[in-house]
């Protein structure tokens, strides 16, 4: 492992401290926890979308080899409602009633000695339903769309109009140029590599839950409430998470049932969802249909932005895509902005947060519309965006703390070679390939939550830095080590990090791209507090070489305590006084700065695509992404984050989409053979560049967040490049070859 040079500038580049564990199979994900005497649960799912279960025949399953129990709505596991609904992914608790709200809903749990026995017994259960026809199609549901009321703290229908302008349509009517387009995209799934899994172990009325989660604390609260036990009796452990993307924030049916079954059966129960089951037992991203109408002057100045969206919502609740309010709301300066978010409630599995919730779909519509406007105006798409760069948050008189979107474009254009572009569509033909380039903006708000970190000086010479946050592959293990190293002036390899355990220092977890921004500042505070404790021990303990020195005369310096004429390492001190460790917890939270500025990360994407002139398949040749995300804590894992975000966007642009059968509500491609994600061969060279301007108005670290911003705008950049290559504007995602065959 590389270690950070002492006193180096903030952006170090170190390998993942958990990398070795991961590549050697030593990292234990939830399903890898082998509790003694564990039984295995297999979920039973509904095979209709809407109705009531009349009866279930479980006799054969109960007789099957190894079966311990079959739980159903007719023989349920008791769960308490009303506890912590925020963090259950749907509005109901499993098995507490016989209603079926969507195809693939959990309606039972078979528990057996082995996974295979549970699965095979599950195949023997049959259910008899009173079936009603489901509503499963977004387009069909649009006529009965409803107003969700408020979105992101603002009205779902929001007008920010110039003085004297009555309606957005008035502003559009008086614009010199207008463009309008309707953009659609299907429901999508997170498809994290690690499927959802839980191992529930009860011992002496204490529950330990190994459950891959983005938030051990939210899971803990939810499970405790649903099971009716004191939160102090529950511990949630999740040191490694194989991808979350927002789908491991809420608590789904499997940990609730595993924990309840383990209590009832008096032995540990493990439930691992099959890949197919993750599609319906956990969350998704809404299907979205949007219309964006832009009005501008001939010189490209935006006069009016009108952005309307219909997002699918589930009758079981959930977090729907908020496309206009997360993008057109503030990405560009325009005299008149009108947003309108509607929801279409369907008999489908609940949507939940999914990487850049709202921005992902919203940016596809807005950033494609801008490209259409550029074409209409005969203006360079980069110049058009620079012309409309917003310097204050529209409709609020607050500036951004640190905003460099213009620089993203300038730097990106140079790195990419944008100036070589002939703007005419279909102007670059190389053999059988039509070549085109496109660009789009990225935007994501910076979030910060209260967080605590514990720093402990150990007698063995290492320092432990720990917090109940999560690492979803995002790099948190390493970020804690890097920040601990900087705060303590020690090499990275002397920092022992720990996370993903609800018993560690309080932390809400990893979501909203806020984990580093929230946890990072607390590291320095905790380091400071722990050094103070160390000094206190040094001057008070009678066996300490510094005994009796006034505390004010001792300072901490890179692992040593320094007093006039004397210096002692903390390990030597702890050994001398025979104390195993000295620790302190530091906590930080966002302060009053949060009303005074807007905090947002930005970026610009550039990409080159090739479309086969015969068979129409779009292929990416290269991508350049420049990110304005504040200070970058560890360049290496940060780059991986952006690459991952961009690949997420490639999936959105070219491949991904659930095929929800309108008549049955069944997802026809609920598996990774047919729900297509990008494979390595689909991913071109990706050039990632960080501007690295610290945003110290946001937090002392100057770091915002980069987990999601990389995804935003990618689909538009790709679609815009496809338009440039072929002259065809595809407004319906994914852009598959059938849409490009002419």
């Amino acid at each position, binding site marked *: 492992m590389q270690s950070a040079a002492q006193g180096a500038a903030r952006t170090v580049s170190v390998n993942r401290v958990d990398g070795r564990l991961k590549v050697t199979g030593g990292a234990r994900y939830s399903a890898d926890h082998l509790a003694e005497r564990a039984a295995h649960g297999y979920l039973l799912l509904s095979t209709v979308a809407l109705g009531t279960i009349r009866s279930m025949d479980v006799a054969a399953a109960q007789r099957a080899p190894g079966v311990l129990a079959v739980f159903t709505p007719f023989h349920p596991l008791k769960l308490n409602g009303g506890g912590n609904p925020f963090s259950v992914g749907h509005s109901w608790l499993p098995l507490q009633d016989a209603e079926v709200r969507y195809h693939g809903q959990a309606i039972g749990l078979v528990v057996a000695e082995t996974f295979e026995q549970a699965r*095979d017994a599950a195949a023997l259960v049959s259910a008899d339903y009173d079936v009603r026809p489901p509503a499963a199609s977004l387009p069909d549901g649009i006529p009965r769309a409803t107003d969700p009321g408020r979105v992101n703290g603002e009205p779902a229908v929001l007008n920010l109009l110039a003085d004297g302008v009555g309606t957005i349509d008035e502003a559009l009517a008086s614009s010199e140029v207008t463009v309008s387009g309707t953009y659609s995209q299907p429901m999508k799934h997170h498809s994290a590599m690690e499927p959802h899994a839980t191992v529930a172990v009860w011992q002496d009325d204490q529950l330990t839950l190994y459950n891959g989660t983005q938030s051990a604390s939210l899971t803990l609260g939810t499970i405790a409430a649903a099971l009716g036990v004191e939160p102090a009796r529950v511990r949630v452990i999740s040191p490694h998470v194989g991808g979350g993307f927002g789908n491991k924030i809420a608590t789904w049916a499997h940990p609730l049932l595993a924990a309840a079954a383990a209590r009832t059966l008096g032995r540990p129960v493990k439930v691992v969802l099959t890949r197919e089951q993750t599609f319906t037992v956990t969350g998704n991203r809404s299907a979205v249909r949007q219309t964006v109408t832009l009005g501008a002057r001939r010189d490209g100045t935006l006069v009016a932005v009108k952005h309307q969206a219909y997002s699918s919502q589930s009758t079981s609740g959930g977090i729907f895509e908020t496309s206009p309010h997360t993008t057109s709301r503030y990405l560009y300066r325009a005299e008149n902005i009108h947003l309108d978010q509607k929801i279409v409630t369907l008999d489908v599995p609940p949507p939940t947060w999914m990487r850049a919730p709202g921005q992902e779909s919203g940016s596809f519509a807005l950033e494609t519309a801008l490209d259409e406007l550029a074409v209409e105006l005969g203006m360079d798409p980069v110049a058009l965006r620079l012309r409309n760069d917003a310097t204050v948050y529209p409709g609020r008189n607050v500036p951004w703390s640190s905003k460099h979107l213009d620089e993203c474009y300038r730097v990106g254009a140079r790195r990419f070679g944008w100036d070589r572009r002939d703007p005419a569509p279909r102007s670059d033909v190389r053999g059988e390939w039509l070549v085109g380039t496109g660009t789009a903006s990225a935007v994501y708000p910076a979030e910060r939550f209260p967080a605590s970190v514990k720093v402990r000086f150990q007698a063995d010479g290492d320092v432990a830095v720990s917090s109940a946050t999560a690492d979803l592959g995002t790099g948190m293990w390493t970020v804690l080590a890097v920040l601990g190293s900087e705060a303590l002036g020690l090499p990275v390899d002397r920092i022992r990090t720990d996370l993903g355990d609800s018993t560690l220092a309080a932390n809400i977890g990893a979501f909203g791209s806020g984990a580093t921004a929230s946890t990072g500042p607390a590291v320095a505070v905790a380091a400071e507090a722990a050094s103070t404790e160390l000094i206190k021990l040094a001057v008070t303990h009678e066996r300490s070489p510094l005994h009796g020195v006034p505390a004010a005369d001792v300072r901490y310096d890179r692992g040593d305590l320094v007093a006039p004429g004397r210096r002692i390492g903390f390990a030597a001190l702890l050994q001398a006084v025979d104390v195993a460790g000295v620790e302190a917890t530091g906590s930080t939270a966002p302060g009053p700065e949060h009303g005074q500025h807007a905090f947002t990360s930005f970026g610009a994407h550039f990409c080159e695509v090739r479309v086969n002139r015969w068979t129409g398949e779009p292929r990416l040749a290269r991508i350049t992404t420049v990110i304005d995300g504040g200070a970058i804590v560890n360049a290496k894992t940060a780059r991986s984050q952006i690459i991952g975000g961009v690949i997420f966007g490639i999936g959105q642009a070219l491949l991904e989409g659930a095929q929800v059968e309108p008549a049955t509500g069944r997802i026809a*491609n609920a598996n990774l053979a047919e729900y*297509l994600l990008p494979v390595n061969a689909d991913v071109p060279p990706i050039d990632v560049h960080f501007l690295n301007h610290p945003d110290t108005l946001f937090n002392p670290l100057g770091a915002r967040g980069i987990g999601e911003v990389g995804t935003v705008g990618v689909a538009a950049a790709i679609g815009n490049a496809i338009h440039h290559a072929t002259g065809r504007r595809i407004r319906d995602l994914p852009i598959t*070859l059938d849409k490009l*065959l002419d």
Partner: protein
Amino acid sequence: MRAFDFAVAETLGQALTRAGSGAGSAYLAGGTTLVDLMKLDVMTPRQVVDINRLPLRGVTTDRSGLHIGALERMSDVAVHPLVTARYPVIAQALSRSASPQLRNMASIGGNLLQRVRCGYFRDTSTPCNKREPGSGCPAIGGENRGHAILGTSDSCVATHPSDLAVALVALDASVRLVGRDGTRDVRLADFYRLPGDTPQLEHDLRPGELVTRVTVPELAWARRSAYLKIRDRQSYEFALASAAVALDLRDGVIRDVRLAVGGVGTRPWRLPEVEEALRGMSPRPDAVEAAAARAVADARPLAHNRFKVTLVRRTIVRALTNLAG
């Protein structure tokens, strides 16, 4: 998965005896189709006979052509010098199939006998005429973007999934079948059945029979051959359309040609009428496209796969012009 008896056969005779009449019995080669479908409860043999120890190996040539043992692994055949040099179309069809891990396990015989990828076939909570004769075909009115436009019936519209089979049908390959009643060689083109009213019957293998080898007749000009596979992503996906082409091109004129397409038919689809139209022609794109139009004269597209009518034509044009150029 249902409980089943498991036996390992050491010899061909043992395998045939074990399988007996064949009813309820399945041979296990790489298991990448069989075990997958058993886990899904789609295939439910009472007995599984492992044939991996049988001596059905080897890639050899003699006067009658190239012989490939049924238990050769896809990954080995894909890089075998005899194959890459003489029949690039076979090597390419194999290396564009599935994933490296699957190709390391999967056998040539198993590949030719793999089952369809229709999502309804694989989901026992839905009807399917192939899985449960007479229960209906939800694909016809359901999700059918990947389904066939050629050779379909009102009972079944599933696409034949094998890439290798397309290349082999283009090359007039045959399979050797060994059963308790003897040995026979069958042209692969005749081996596969159309679904008609009996989509559960996919091929001409009799119960208990084994595929022991594949033979590809000598065809010197197959050195100029290629497999073009079109799909949404660039790897690890079945074909939306594919073309296996071998070209005898002399002085810019097509003297002879072999052409079969995949991803569009209920079996690997040889195109004699297009071959006929191409003979004597110089392979210019417009001329090839006109000839290729014959491929889809009888196409019956469904709600989501109409694009395949155009796509398969273009795939042929692209494959041929690239090979000629």
